């Protein structure tokens, strides 16, 4: 589509890659520089949403007790998040959060996966807006759950006052406040964003670096090849990061919900 593909086609290499490489021109209106309503990034988000909805609705249109292959696959995804994340982290009460966690996990996984899917090759999560939305939802979710379960005062007491001697509390309470209510959404969002951003940047560096060296000096061609081989290797690494970050985001959200539901600190 844009960016890398165009660079490859044109044989031109803007090297080194910059932050601007993440901000692609608008699709509608075509080519506009600072219009963000309909870009490749937002298009990919819609595609991810559409693919997930179609996949799940199609494979679960007519559920059978003895599942078909497609139904089994859809169930495995849900079963994985339900049993290995929701129930493992929260216990039996976690089952009611499993639908949200599964939606979250699938969305993050697929949008992350765009980073290495040919022609997409950039993850929407390398724009902090999307991780930020998900992190805010997680933040609101765990606080809401905690307040609903314990009541406002008891929830904040549980969260802010650890079982420690009174003289150390003046130190601990600000730390708890800071780590639980301020840092959490940022760390969630930035972790996912930075991983996808850095992954894309790495792939850009090695891909474009290959072209840069090739165009600088024909004798550097072997090094260019090495650079592209590194791109392939890094794509595998990126695959690992994609899966891991989707898992980590979901597990941390589950962990926060678990902490909010817990009786004691």
């Amino acid at each position, binding site marked *: 589509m844009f960016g890398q593909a165009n660079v490859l086609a044109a044989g031109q290499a803007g090297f080194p890659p910059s932050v601007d490489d993440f*901000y692609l021109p608008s699709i509608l209106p075509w080519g506009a520089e600072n219009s963000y309503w309909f870009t490749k990034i937002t298009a990919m988000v819609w595609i*991810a949403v559409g693919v997930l909805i179609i996949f799940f609705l199609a494979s679960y249109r007519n559920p059978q007790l003895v599942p078909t292959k497609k139904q089994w696959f859809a169930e495995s995804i849900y079963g994985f998040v339900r049993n290995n994340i929701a129930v493992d982290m929260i216990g039996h009460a976690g089952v009611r959060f499993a639908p949200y966690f599964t939606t979250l996990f699938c969305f993050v996984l697929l949008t992350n996966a765009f980073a290495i899917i040919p022609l997409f090759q950039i993850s929407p999560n390398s724009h*902090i807006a999307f991780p*930020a939305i998900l992190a805010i939802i997680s933040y609101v979710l765990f606080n809401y759950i905690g307040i609903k379960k314990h009541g406002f005062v008891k929830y904040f007491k549980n969260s802010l006052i650890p079982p420690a001697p009174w003289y150390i509390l003046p130190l601990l309470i600000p730390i708890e406040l800071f780590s639980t209510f301020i840092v959490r959404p940022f760390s969630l969002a930035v972790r996912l964003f930075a991983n996808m951003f850095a992954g894309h940047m790495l792939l850009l560096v090695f891909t474009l670096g290959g072209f840069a060296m090739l165009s600088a000096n024909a004798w550097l061609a072997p090094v260019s090849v090495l650079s592209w081989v590194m791109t392939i290797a890094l794509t595998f690494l990126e695959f690992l990061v994609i899966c891991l970050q989707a898992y980590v985001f979901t597990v941390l959200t589950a962990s926060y919900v678990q902490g909010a539901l817990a009786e004691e600190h």
Partner: protein
Amino acid sequence: MYFLAAEGGESAHNPIIPLWQEIVVGSVAFAVLCFVLMKFVFPRMEQTFQARVDAIEGGIKRAEAAQAEANQLLEQYRAQLAEARTDAAKIRDDARADAEGIRQDILAKAREESDRVIQAGKDALAAERATIVRELRAEVGTIAVDLASKIVGESLADEARRKGTVDRFLSGLESTGAR
């Protein structure tokens, strides 16, 4: 990149500041996704899981019930078989006893019959003998008297009959013959 290169200079973007347009788009898109999946897909999966658990547990229960019924039937058949065997043995014993009784009856009847036949034969023989003896007696008497008359030359018949000489003689003969 070539079109971005045209822009040139310092980066116009700060990657840590979210674009508000993307926040709107992402929120709406993710909300749609959540709505559809959490309303129409995952609850149904939960239902299916539950139905599957029920089906498996129900299947196990049904199998257990069937097993129990089969065991009960087996016990029943075994009991019936044992009973039938006992009955058969009893019937065989009865039959054997009956056969023995019948044999005894037949034997007894046969013995009785043979005894009766022998007795009848003996009686008939005795009667015949008695008849023959009686006839002989009369005949021998007559012959003897006739012989004696011829020898003596006079008729002794009346006298001899009167005096019972012949009978006495024959009785003597009989008693010696019987000895």
